[in-house]
């Protein structure tokens, strides 16, 4: 078991990462795909607009990048705080 102060700092760093990533997750899907679509209507792509692309493809690609970046960042954090397996 790692000492308490180290795992506290580790947990706080993890929570900050999660918050940032959830903002990106939300903006890419609910934002660009649904709520902000009217604002993106001017940007045309393949016979439709950017919001349509985000809703049908872009959001999924962003999700993929998010998960692997999170996994990579957490592995780094694990080592920095000495809590890796």
């Amino acid at each position, binding site marked *: *078991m*790692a000492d*308490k102060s180290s*795992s506290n700092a*580790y*947990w706080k760093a*993890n929570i900050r990462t*999660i918050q940032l*990533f*959830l903002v990106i*997750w939300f903006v890419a*899907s*609910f934002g660009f*795909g*649904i*709520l902000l*679509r009217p604002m993106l209507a001017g940007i045309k*792509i*393949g*016979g*439709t*607009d950017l919001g*349509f*692309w985000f*809703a*049908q*493809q872009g*959001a*999924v*690609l962003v*999700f*993929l990048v*998010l*998960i*692997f970046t*999170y*996994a990579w960042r*957490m*592995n780094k954090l*694990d080592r920095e*705080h*000495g*809590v*890796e*397996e």
Partner: protein
Amino acid sequence: MDQFTLNLLVVGATFVLYIGIAIWARAGSTAEFYAAGRGVHPVLNGMATGADWMSAASFISMAGIIAFSGYDASTYLMGWTGGYVLLAMLLAPYLRKFGKFTVPEFIGDRFYSQTARTVAVICLIIASITYVIGQMTGVGVAFSRFLEVDNTTGLFIGAAIVFLYAVLGGMKGITYTQVAQYVVLIIAYTIPAIFISLQLTGNPIPALGLFSNDVNTGAPILATLNDTVEALGFKSYTGQHDTTLNMFLFTMTLMIGTAGLPHVIVRFFTVPTVADARSSAGWALVFISLLYLTAPAVGAMARLNLINTFYPEGVSQPAVELSQIETAPQNLWVRNWEKTGLLTIADKNGDGRIEYNANKDTNELDVNRDIITLANPEIANLPGWVIALVAAGGLAAALSTAAGLLMAISSAVSHDLIKSQINPNISEKGELLAARISMAVAIAVATYLGLNPPGFAAQTVALAFGLAASSIFPALMMGIFSKKINNTGAVAGMLVGLTTTLVYIFLHKGWFFVADTASFSDANPMILSIKSTSFGVIGAVLNFITAFIVSGATKGTPEEIQELVESIRVPKGAGAATDH
């Protein structure tokens, strides 16, 4: 060789493969039966999760929904993928660190309460069985079409196959079988899509083809599709026609439902390390996105091809002649699907032509959305082996998901009910037997309900998502991210989330799905524009609020539980936790 023989050969060959793998990997100990000895590589686990996740709803149904709803159906695409981000960051690594076998086990231990565990088992069983019913219905439809047997026979054959490999193989059998099923289903889904994308746009990658130019008109394919459907009186393909509120809530419900479905979560118990649990969610989404990035192209192109069948000279010209539908070789698919009753044509005005448009009185074609993916290669006149492959893929999708769900149900019953509460002294052999018996019972129940389903498969599946979203996901998340939530709070929260969601659905779909007992309809819902399928996220919010209020008013969590929460938050020591 005729199409029937070809279907039989291809489907038969894939089944021999699945069953062979299940027998080869037959489980010995309980640890192996539930979690494959925790030795599954993240990439393989990702493929198996992909097969587990992509059911008849994703494979058979989704592209058809997109074809007819266009942009509005984006909710499915985002909802059924975005949940993996939540899984990877909010649940998977901590549940892996916790290091036990089942979801109710975590809820029972974290909330130091047998009642919490039992409530979790109830939520799990209700959500999983409703999901399996939808799969069984899908299995029945696919078998009956491609093996040319009636629906009931198709369902029984499917149930027997699921029973064989789930019961014999346990999780390990399922993991490797599901890797094979993933490979079959993704090949089956993408090959016809590539052919069709090449025909229509000249681009071999369907996801790119969707945003390319139509080789005939030279205009972007989505613009051509908009013009075509609007000329027939339909709503534009790329426009929004659902309310923003309902789209938002439905997408969120599907996302958190994904992260709350026990058969998906349990996958992350089977990877070797906490770091692997994080990347496994990513690998799962890689394999899932291969289908999900292709589906919008399949939907849009199928809609165009469908319209071209009935307006071969273009929508400004007269519709196809009835005699052409009845005899021309390129229209064989219409005649094939007419036999199933899922596609009907009627020359109402007797002009010898079959018109397709948005006007109920003059429209002469009725197409069930669920046939689009299966009929797609036939509509595009692709070779027979492609049609047979799609049949095998659809069955792989439905069977693999059914098996994963059955596994979750059986481990909840044998491990969380019998071993922990009814008979703690049960031998390992007895526990395995109980797991297998509960699996058999679950199959029998699902098969029976699959014969007389409570509604369309999509409705049943949506219920499963709403229930998982409103009951299991909040309990897991609070258990990890808050030390304050206590036993009473968690139980009260789960019960409030589960019952409000169930009641809202029953109010719209009828009590226990008896349609004429419904007080509202999804076309005119009880609260604002919130359809019954979109309510799960509201149930989840009520769950969170209830749990916080009740926990605040009752005795705090004991010291050892706070330490348990501390320990699952760091990966260190995960190896030791797996020793049972």
